[in-house]
């Protein structure tokens, strides 16, 4: 082939005009509409957004950040992590430690120490609680702790070229081991019960409507910010290399690229995003415990991304909303069906919707394409 024909297509713009419009609408919805409908529209009105809805959407937006992070590492780089729940929980625990310190001596035992430490008869804070009284340090640690742990783990894993399923399985072992560790009382993270009964954040009471709204808006803005950031990442040259690694890692290496820095950096970015999501999640739901690190939680994140559509940034966000919406609806109306539904979702999406819901919508033929695909599958088998 003629070398002069090797020219990259012009870089794509960050978002199309239509997408920018949609983005601004979302921004308005999160930043203006939701607070207005919740705070200023009276409770009886049809337009009123209930506190329950705010709490639910706030929670799901945290999950959506996780799904977005999962999409960067799985959808765009082809590395399936079954341990992202660990980073989510780590961010949550860092924030939880700060919130525990904010309780001050208003706990049940009226002690400066968190209640569970009094209960364990500890006299002073363990070393890893040293920075937990400062909000600035906490914000830094929310980024640093998941980042550093992911960095160390990822460096060794990617350096040894652990790929595919093996990587998935050792990430699962990692979060499982961490869960066992956090269940222990003597590690100083509250054991089984974790942290709860938060009272204040930045010396302001945490359980007020205004504080809830603030956290909601903050989460929404973070989600939108991360979306733009991810979009910028994947449309850049860096993002192209990531996708090349996903599709043909050996060829990337033969072309003179070392995959290690690319994989490691996107892995750390993804972990930090999860950590931030966890830190936003904990003050909104008011509890963090080692259950968040269970392998099942991490694998659910992968399903949000898969349902919405991998390698489409909007897909995972849609997936997180749909799956969690269905979860909160089904666990109330028909709790015994929720696991059937989730299980069936796993199977249907992997069998028939490799590109997720968004992938389905993008194809001009839509449902017809799906039927064609099923026919082709049946023919092949």
């Amino acid at each position, binding site marked *: 082939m003629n070398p002069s024909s090797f020219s990259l297509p012009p870089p794509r713009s960050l978002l199309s005009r239509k997408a920018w419009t949609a983005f601004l609408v979302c921004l308005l919805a999160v930043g203006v509409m939701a607070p207005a409908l919740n705070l200023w529209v009276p409770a009886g009105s049809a337009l009123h957004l209930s506190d329950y809805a705010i709490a639910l959407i706030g929670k799901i937006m945290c999950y959506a950040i996780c799904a977005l992070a999962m999409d960067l590492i*799985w959808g765009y780089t082809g590395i*399936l992590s079954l341990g992202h729940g660990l980073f989510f929980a780590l961010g949550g625990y860092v924030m939880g430690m700060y919130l525990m310190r904010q309780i001050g001596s208003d706990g049940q035992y009226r002690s400066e120490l968190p209640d569970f430490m009094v209960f364990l008869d500890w006299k002073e804070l363990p070393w890893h609680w040293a920075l937990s009284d400062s909000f600035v340090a906490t914000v830094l640690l929310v980024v640093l702790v998941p980042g550093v742990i992911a960095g160390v783990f990822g460096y*060794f*894993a990617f*350096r*040894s*070229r*652990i790929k*595919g*399923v*093996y990587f*998935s*399985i*050792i990430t*699962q*072992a*990692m979060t*499982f*081991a961490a869960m*066992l*560790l956090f*269940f*222990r009382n003597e590690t100083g993270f509250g054991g089984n019960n974790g942290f709860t009964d938060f009272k204040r954040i930045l010396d302001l009471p945490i359980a007020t409507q205004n504080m809830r709204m603030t956290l909601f808006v903050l989460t929404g803005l973070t989600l939108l910010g991360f979306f733009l950031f991810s979009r910028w990442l994947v449309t850049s040259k860096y993002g192209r290399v990531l996708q090349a690694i996903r599709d043909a890692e050996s060829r990337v290496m033969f072309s003179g690229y070392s995959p290690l820095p690319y994989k490691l950096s996107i892995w750390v970015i993804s972990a930090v995003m999860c950590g931030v999501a966890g830190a936003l999640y904990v003050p909104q739901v008011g509890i963090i415990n080692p259950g968040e690190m269970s*392998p099942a939680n991490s*694998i659910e994140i*992968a*399903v949000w991304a*898969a349902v919405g559509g991998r390698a489409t940034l909007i897909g995972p966000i849609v997936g997180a909303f749909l799956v969690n919406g269905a979860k909160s609806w089904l666990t109330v109306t028909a709790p*015994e069906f929720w*696991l*059937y539904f*989730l*299980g*069936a*979702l*796993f*199977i249907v*999406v*992997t*069998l028939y919707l*490799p590109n997720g819901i968004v992938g389905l919508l993008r194809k001009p033929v839509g449902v017809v394409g799906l039927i064609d695909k099923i026919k082709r*599958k049946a023919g092949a*088998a």
Partner: protein
Amino acid sequence: MRRWITRCVAVLGLLLVCNAHALTAEEALGIAVGETDARIEALGKAAAQGDDRTAAYLQALADDAVKLAAGRVLVVRDGKGLDPVSGEGVPVPPDAEDVMLNNRLRGEIDTALAALRLFSSDVSLRRQAALSLLKDPDVSRKPVLDKALAAEKDAAVLDLLRQAQAAVMLGSEQAAARMSAARTLGQSAQAEVLLLLNQQLSAETDPAVQSALKAAVRQVQDGLRWGERLGQLFTGVSLGSILLLVALGLAITYGLMGVINMAHGELMMIGAYATYVVQAAFRQYLPEAFDLYLLAALPLAFATSALVGALMERGVLRHLYGRPLETLLATWGISLILMQAVRSLFGAQNVGVENPSWMSGSIPLMSNLQLPWNRVLIIAFAAAVLLGMVLLIGKTRLGLFVRGVTQNRPMAACMGINTARIDTYAFALGSGIAGLAGCALSQIGNVGPDLGQSYIVDAFMVVVLGGVGQLAGTVYAALGLGLAGKLLEGWTGAVLAKIAVLVFIIVFIQKRPQGIFALKGREA
């Protein structure tokens, strides 16, 4: 006061007449009511000359089965009254009151019972009695011990009696007696003897006896250490055999076929529930053959899990070959559905699976080493399953086909092998072995919908560590992980040991990814 009574009992013991006499009504009443001291005295008197009926009465007291009515004592078992003196059935008056025992009396009764049992005609009872006297020496028992020593024929019991006597003599006034007692006790292998020796050592003043005691302590410790080590080794091998059973099925589905089956644990759970169903059916329809239910459960557990596995393969996995990550997610979905299905059918609570009588109990090897039968049999079972699999894969036509398809699918297809059918068979085989593992697990642990979850991470670790596509690696990895886990557990505690093993595996995989993941089959 206590000493006075002890001495009194000792005197009574010395007066012991050889022919035992039957329990009298006054004695029976004297033990049951009155001041504690008086009751102990009565107890000593009755026990010193007691026969089998006294023993039965004391046992009833210890079991809280004695009631008091109108100045008479009655043994009440299952609502039926029994006169302890005559042994005849009597009606239980409605106003009968329970006889109360305090802890001191309870202890006295237990030792008295032990002393009485020394003359039982059953060797194992005598053995137990001698052991309990050794563990709790009391000067008052010396005459009984002397008498038992003279009468005893069984060598093992005789040894124990000598040691029990030595334990009593350890508190003697004479240094020489203490010295010889220490020497005798040194031959013992009981953990309690160590306690006795150490107690005496701290109180001992005579330097010669002190060194004899120290030597005895060392000797006993050496004996015990072996028991402990062997015990740890055994629990390690036992855990290893369970991991092996769990991982053998995976070694086929994952190792040979390259299917990441996250529902493997749930296939085990299905095997365990199949065992539960068979057990319930036997209890209902064939109670006299209950002990044999496990033999019927094994094939059924295999068949059920294999069927579910075959359906999984035909329905879902077949369409996902070559896409391992999607397989992982789909099988996870299947595992959720299976768990919920079991919850809907059997309830979310654990169900009880009872061991058949030939699996309960244990083999006593040393004083501190007992091997439970169910664990021993599971080790044997794991070995048998392993052998069966090696033969199946290595010697049969099906095994040949599986190996052929694994190594080179298109070539195998060209040779006329129906590769799709072989896939189904192989997957069903792996699933069936998971069912067998579930059947074995039902004998040692809880059976509940979450049974599989607790083993799945371990099982994958075993297969990954052992190397994909080879059974020998799986065996080494299972036994190695089992032993390492249990040995660490003795050192750091269960949870930290588990974490340490997981961290070790993560590090190990970092170090030797290529060597261990010598991929064969479709995965590569």
